[in-house]
């Protein structure tokens, strides 16, 4: 797994294992620690569950159920039933896209918290075109619906990027506002023009032929493959192309990149647009791969989870895959845990929060963003001196 810069290839081959360890040691410790603390949370929560005797081993039951929900049992595997693992992969795919969206932004020194909104817009674009082309030949319908989702997600990322670059509106607050606007826009459309007229509840038609094909039965859709391809492509863009160099340079020191003749404003706009497009793909992934239609309450935890995925992977596109897999598995297993142990599925949120806190507490995360993501608040002001963040 070569994760360094192009010029890093001359490094000692021998140290590869050591380097890999230095990369994964902290995240592993963080994950294990958080799972242990999660067990403590389960124990502490027990008195709150009405009508249930205290069970000191409830956390074992809960985690067992979660693991079973995420990967199934050997018994199932022997019977050729891999639905749990496939389910985890289905949960993971949008997180890979979302994690790439956040991580790519980080590389340019931008914090795209708007993945949730771009995700919703991506799904909205996909469902609109998908319903319209529901009866068209599958390849046409799929490509058009996916492109529509990517385009709307990109547009939703473009707006805060443009505002950041040309008026100094900080992307963190504006992307969050765009999230809320997206929620309202989606509700308005799904209960309005996109609604199935006869239906009592607000729901759209099915996307029909635009649905992504199943590549791994029972429900493993095309998105799983696309997510892997996307991670590799993003890595390639960042570390092998001149544009990727510009993105990383701007993120590390936008002043120096401007002085060197790059155009940080355009790079900011392009980065946010590209990031939004990736988030839009996450939306396509859920809509065209899983739900195939949209209700007014459409939405998942992909937005927040993506931030955790990117932080845990330190924005490295390749590492984002295992990171997304971790959260995808927890989300996939949480349902069974809720049924078997009566612990709310939101426990995953708590574990996730603990992972995030632990990551910040490890000094590693500090070097993640090479520049102040708050960035250029007034047009000519400086991004925090890089010297400050580099020991």
């Amino acid at each position, binding site marked *: 797994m070569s994760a360094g810069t192009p*010029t890093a*290839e001359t490094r000692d081959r021998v140290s590869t294992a050591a380097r890999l360890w230095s990369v994964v040691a902290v995240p592993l410790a963080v994950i294990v620690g958080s799972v242990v603390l999660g067990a403590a949370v389960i124990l502490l929560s027990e008195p709150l569950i009405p009508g249930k005797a205290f069970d000191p081993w409830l956390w074992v039951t809960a985690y067992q159920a979660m693991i079973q929900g995420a990967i199934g049992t050997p018994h199932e595997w022997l019977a050729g039933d891999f639905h749990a693992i496939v389910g985890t992969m289905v949960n993971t795919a949008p997180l890979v896209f979302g994690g790439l969206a956040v991580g790519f932004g980080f590389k340019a020194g931008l914090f795209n918290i708007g993945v949730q909104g771009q995700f919703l817009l991506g799904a909205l674009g996909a469902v609109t075109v998908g319903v319209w082309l529901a009866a068209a030949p599958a390849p046409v319908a799929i490509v058009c619906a996916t492109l529509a989702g990517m385009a709307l997600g990109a547009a939703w990322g473009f707006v805060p990027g443009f505002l950041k670059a040309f008026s100094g509106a900080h992307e963190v607050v504006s992307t969050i506002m765009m999230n809320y606007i997206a929620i309202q826009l989606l509700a308005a459309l799904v209960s309005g023009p996109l609604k199935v007229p006869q239906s009592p509840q607000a729901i759209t038609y099915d996307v029909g032929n635009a649905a992504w094909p199943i590549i791994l039965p029972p429900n493993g859709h095309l998105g799983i493959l696309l997510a892997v391809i996307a991670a590799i492509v993003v890595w390639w863009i960042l570390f092998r192309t001149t544009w990727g160099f510009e993105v990383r340079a701007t993120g590390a020191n936008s002043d120096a990149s401007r002085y060197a003749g790059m155009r940080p404003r355009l790079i900011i706009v392009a980065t946010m647009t590209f990031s939004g497009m990736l988030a839009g793909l996450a939306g396509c992934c859920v809509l065209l791969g899983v739900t195939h239609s949209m209700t007014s309450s459409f939405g998942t935890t992909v937005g927040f989870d993506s931030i955790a995925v990117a932080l845990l992977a330190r924005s490295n596109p390749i590492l984002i895959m295992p990171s997304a897999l971790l959260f995808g598995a927890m989300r996939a297993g949480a349902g069974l845990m809720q049924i078997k142990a009566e612990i709310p599925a939101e426990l995953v949120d708590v574990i996730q929060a603990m992972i995030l806190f632990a990551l910040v507490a490890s000094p590693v995360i500090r070097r993640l963003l090479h520049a102040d993501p708050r960035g250029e608040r007034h047009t000519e002001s400086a991004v925090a001196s890089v010297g400050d963040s580099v020991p």
Partner: protein
Amino acid sequence: MAGLSGTIQAPPLEMRGITKRYPGVVANDGISLDVRPGEIHALLGENGAGKTTLMNVLYGLATPDEGQILLDGEQVRISGPADAIARGINMVHQHFMLVPVLSVADNILLGEETMANRVFLDRKEAHRRILELGRSFGFEIDPEAKVSTLSVGWQQRVEILKALYRNARILVLDEPTAVLTPQETEEIFVVLRRLADQGHSIVFISHKLYEVLEIADRITVIRRGRVVGERRPTETNEDDLAELMVGREVQLTVDRGVSNPGRPMLRVSGLEATDDRGHAVLGGVDLEIRAGEILGIAGVAGNGQDELVEAIVGLRKPTAGKITLDGRDITGSSPRALNETGVAYVPADRHRFGLILPFSIADNLVLTSYYRRPYSRGVLRDGAAIERDAISAVERFDIRTPSVTARAATLSGGNQQKVVVAREFDRDLKLLVLDQPTRGLDVGSIEFIHKQVIAKRDAGTAVLLVSAELDEVLELSDRIAVMYRGRIVAVLDGPTADKNEVGLLMATGGAARAEAATAEVPA
């Protein structure tokens, strides 16, 4: 203050055998130093010799590994700036420690507030005391003025007032004249003399030999963390001090040779520009640089030099005027377009503008050319070509690093600047723009860079040099343009220019023009 000026008792400040180690470097190695009442004691050493570390130890910002500090003969442990201030030690830092958006009074009060009651400030009483204090040293200062509106000379006075407001008896000044004109320097020297006469003890840190000779009663020279000599001004001279400071015989001035100016290369006419806040800062600049000539810009910081440089290299859009390079109009061209036509630029702040510190040396060397052949093919980067050329540049420009993949942040200041120089100098140039090219560097690096600049000039490049160090401008320039309030007020012949004349022009814009300027801008 008469009680302070006793002669028999122990010195107010004595430092004995101070040693301070940082990982991989001994910043101070058994340094001893004492200051008597009413004495100005100069601490002379080049950048990185350990002066600042020693003063941080004195100010409680660093704990020494060995050695003692004695105040009035009594050993003390200074726990931090607050403690130092309480013991009468005050420091005027090289980079002023003033809050620009606050008033003079608020800056002086800060940390030593005059209170009306437990919660609220007594600004009236504070103003009265500040005015009084200022008058006792012969100047009148408006306590309500915002510090950001003051000239550096006046900011320096605010710093000194700040110390006096705290009843300082030991005053440490770290490179206090770095940003002053010769005249402002003289004025501050008068104030310092008066302070010493009143019995204050002053430590004067500098690397400027003639200044030290002029102001100090005693000079301690340090090199690489050790005291290498102590002199009295009467028994030494500049050459002696320079040799002590650097450890070898140094040429105090580079051999700039003779310039052979060719055709006019850069021509700027009627250039106007505004600063970031939209205020007009360039009021019609005209200048011309010929091929094979170094034009130095002398001026007090903030007179439009930054904007002029930015306009020339394409980072700032002029509001009026014209810039031509070798006969071609380049007004408003982008930095990249200029770079491609043979303009190179070494920005003032290498950490902020010149380098991307977390990136490798190789990546920093292609920061302006990464998109061109041979470093890219289409959208793809060519890592092998980048590395190959980096290895060659590291050799030719004597950049000390274990590998070209090392991060720029791991290099010393001198080597970092050499990376910038290698990137900008290593091709055919028409125009080379240098903004503070040697700030904060050691003598060896300065010599190296100066030689490179001369070599570029001799190869027929037009060089524009901006430096806050008047000495550097005088040393290198074939012609000197003095900038004052957004205009070029005079152009002098470099080798024959008189320092005091230049200083006077910098401070006043020339007597006649000074009046015109004040008439234009009613304060």
